[in-house]
């Protein structure tokens, strides 16, 4: 039998918010997508590290492929969404800031996953080439892609109104996407240590074992679900950030006007007295 301390109960009551509980960026839809992503990522670990066979040439190190390719796929997807959202903002009549937030959120996700691709690729390079880094065409263009989108995110954080931010970052988001074909076809355009595309090649001939291809497919599905989940949460969080920023600016304006009104001598007293005098006469 537990006894309730009245003082503690009173304190607990005081801590209860007066307004109804405020909800986060999660919804039923995001929970379903999130669970789907977790399950798919679990499958990726099982197939990538367990069920898929070793490669004839690369032996066990081929297992890195199942995280390396899906992460760069996610980054490409993210940057293409950034470009499309940027175009939608620039060329639509409504100029909805929702497009701008989608572009920004997608670029943040893309930058994170290009960084992962570069780091994981360095590990794979150490196993297959004996070095972590080479100034090879594919590696260098991917590093350039990473730096470009870091720049894009920096431009988004420059001062100005939300509309100014949206306009300048939309222009950059549409220019930067040109680097994706450059990265993808760099292995064909220049002599490269990096292998050519095994699945997404132009001749359509996939030279992969069935179970390996399935493992890669699981990875791509898992990371696509993860991308959708992250995008939904991040765009919602950015909408709230913008709202609070606007509200903070409005509050600051009201406070400044009140301050100005308090320091300026009221001119209305003379007018009132004149009017009163006039009406009296």
């Amino acid at each position, binding site marked *: 039998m537990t006894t309730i301390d009245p003082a503690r109960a009173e304190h607990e009551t005081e801590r209860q918010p007066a*307004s*109804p509980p*405020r*909800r*986060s*960026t*999660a*919804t039923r839809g995001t929970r379903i997508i999130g669970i789907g992503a977790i399950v798919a*990522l679990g499958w990726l*670990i099982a197939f*990538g*590290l367990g069920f898929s066979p070793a490669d004839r040439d690369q*032996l*066990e*190190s081929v*297992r*890195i492929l199942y*995280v*390396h390719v899906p*992460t760069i796929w996610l980054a490409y997807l993210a940057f293409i969404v950034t470009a499309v959202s940027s175009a939608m903002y620039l060329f639509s009549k409504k100029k909805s800031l929702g497009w701008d937030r989608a572009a920004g959120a997608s670029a943040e*996700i893309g930058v*994170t996953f290009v*960084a*992962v691709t570069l*780091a*994981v690729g360095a*590990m*794979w390079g*150490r*196993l297959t080439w004996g070095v972590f880094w080479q100034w090879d065409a594919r590696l260098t263009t991917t590093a350039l892609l990473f730096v470009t989108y870091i720049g894009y995110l920096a431009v988004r954080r420059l001062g100005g109104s939300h509309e100014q931010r949206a306009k300048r970052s939309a222009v950059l988001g549409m220019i930067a996407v040109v680097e994706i074909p450059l990265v993808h076809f760099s292995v064909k355009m220049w002599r490269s240590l990096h292998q050519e595309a095994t699945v997404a090649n132009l001749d359509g001939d996939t030279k992969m074992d069935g179970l390996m291809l399935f493992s890669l497919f699981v990875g791509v599905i898992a990371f696509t679900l*993860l991308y959708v*989940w*992250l995008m*939904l*949460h*991040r765009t*919602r*969080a950015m*909408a*709230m*950030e913008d*709202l*609070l920023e606007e509200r903070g600016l409005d509050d600051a304006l009201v406070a400044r006007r009140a301050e100005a009104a308090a320091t300026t001598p009221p001119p209305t007293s003379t007018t009132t007295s004149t009017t009163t005098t006039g009406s009296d006469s």
Partner: protein
Amino acid sequence: MEDAGFILGSYFLTFATVALFAWRTVRSGRKLGQQVPDDEKYWL
């Protein structure tokens, strides 16, 4: 054995980054959600 270290390391790095990014995203959503009334959240 060196191969196993790099293979497992690459998986660990990928999944740790995913977990960290997801955690940060959810946490910022929760914190911001406390400051904004529900009727101003278009997704609800």
